């Protein structure tokens, strides 16, 4: 293994040495290169190895104006700029990360359909794919849904949690392949995912507590005089959880890619091929770490989603208990300690 790594590193160094002559003239803007690669774009750039060429696929720009003429490009200091949503223009252009997300979705659906394809008349799975798949499904159901949400409400949210877990996992992993990118390294994507969790959480809360109980919960159960203080606090509290989800996933995925790019970029910053002997093994290590992080972040997102949904479900119980709505809970109580955590 170590031998193979040394061989790999020296090979990489040799290639870098060979190409360094060509790169001598142009000063590489490493930081610009990296940020260009991790950022979203309106085109797909597919680099051709061992050359400076790349194939560029331009992606369609779709603009939906809410009022006539809202999407007219405006000239500013930075060049032509398309007005934002506040100006009444919704830009739903297909971008690099959109494509990556769709690719991940297609791969996800394809592989899950292959894995889950089995003799439905037999209750026991056969084969690696079916077993692995069922193991993951059972893990999400038993360890995430039922532990955090409860035995009778938990199973209802299993499909959501499973989809979140696998979708995020596939998007994370996709970025580890050459020419691909992690859609989860984009704030908008993680924000979209967090919005889904947010919506599901609120629905769970309303389902459990009823609309009245849900609204009562927003008052924090204090004296009406304190409501002007309490309601904004509770209202903001609703958004901190999805915000944490958004930033955590985004930062984790982005940071890993930037670190790998920088380790490799060191070769070009220091302008010496020997750097590859150090930076390539390091980048390889970070790559493995990224592989691990891809799973961990998918798990963390799903686990926290389950936790938040569990809090929403528990809201019903503690709305009744704390605000004394005078109707006795018959169902088994949820984990209140966890709900307050």
């Amino acid at each position, binding site marked *: 293994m170590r031998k193979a790594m040394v061989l790999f590193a020296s090979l990489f160094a040799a290639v870098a040495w060979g190409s360094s002559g060509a790169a001598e003239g142009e000063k590489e803007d490493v930081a610009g290169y990296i940020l260009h690669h991790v950022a979203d774009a309106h085109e797909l750039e597919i680099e051709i190895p061992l050359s400076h060429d790349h194939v560029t696929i331009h992606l369609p720009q779709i603009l939906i104006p809410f009022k006539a003429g809202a999407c007219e490009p405006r000239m500013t200091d930075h060049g032509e700029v398309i007005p934002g949503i506040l100006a009444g223009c*919704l830009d739903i252009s297909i971008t690099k990360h959109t494509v990556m997300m769709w690719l991940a*979705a297609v791969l996800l659906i394809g592989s899950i359909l292959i894995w889950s394809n089995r003799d439905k008349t037999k*209750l026991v799975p056969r084969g690696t794919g079916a077993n692995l798949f069922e193991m993951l499904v059972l893990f999400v159901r038993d360890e995430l849904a039922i532990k955090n949400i409860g035995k009778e409400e938990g199973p209802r949210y299993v499909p959501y949690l499973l989809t979140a877990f696998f979708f995020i996992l596939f998007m994370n992993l996709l970025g580890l392949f050459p020419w691909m990118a992690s859609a989860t390294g984009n704030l908008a994507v993680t924000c979209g995912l967090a919005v889904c969790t947010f919506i599901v959480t609120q629905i769970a809360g309303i389902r459990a507590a009823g609309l009245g109980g849900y609204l009562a919960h927003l008052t924090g159960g204090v004296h009406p005089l304190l409501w002007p203080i309490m309601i904004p606090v509770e209202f903001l509290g609703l958004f901190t959880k999805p915000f944490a989800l958004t930033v955590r996933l985004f930062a984790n995925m982005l940071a890993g890619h930037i670190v790998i790019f920088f380790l490799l970029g060191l070769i070009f910053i220091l302008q010496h091929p020997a750097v590859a002997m150090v930076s390539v093994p390091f980048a390889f290590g970070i790559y493995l770490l990224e592989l691990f992080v891809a799973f961990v972040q998918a798990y963390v997102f799903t686990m926290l989603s389950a936790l938040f949904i569990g809090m929403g479900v528990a809201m019903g119980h503690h709305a009744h208990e704390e605000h004394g709505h005078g109707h006795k809970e018959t169902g088994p109580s949820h984990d209140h300690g966890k709900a307050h955590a």
Partner: protein
Amino acid sequence: MFLPSVLAASSFVEVRPGLIFWTIVTFVLVMVVLRWKAWGPILQLVQERETQISNSVESAKKMLVEAEQKMAEAKEAIAKARQEAAETVRKNQAEMTAFRDEMMAKSRKDADEFKASARREIDEQKAKAIAEVRAMAVDLSIEVAGKLINERMDDSKHRALADQFVQGLPVGGSATARRSA
């Protein structure tokens, strides 16, 4: 140094509403497809399996209890049968003993009776024989005496005499011994 300018120039901290829209749309579509094709069937299968397993365990438990009960019943029946058999044997033995005793007693009684009747007959026959011998002896002696004295004797007077004589004779072998002497 370059970071602020890079951050300003780069779009990676920008949140594009369009992408949020696409994310939600994609996510919902993926969820619908997977729920329909994968999660639904698999969760149903798992549920079915769990129910089946718990049912099997339950019925196994029930069967075990039943088996234990049956085992206890069988044991009880065996013990009862054994006890009954022992009792029967004992009863038979007692009957046998009683029967044997009865038979023994009966045969003993029969034998005793037979012995007694035989003895009685012997005694009778003996007495008869003696009486006959005596009568014959009287006649004989009268005849002998008549021939000896050659005269007619008064029947009743002499018969009494002869009787007296015969009475004086010893019974059995001693009489013959005297006669031969």
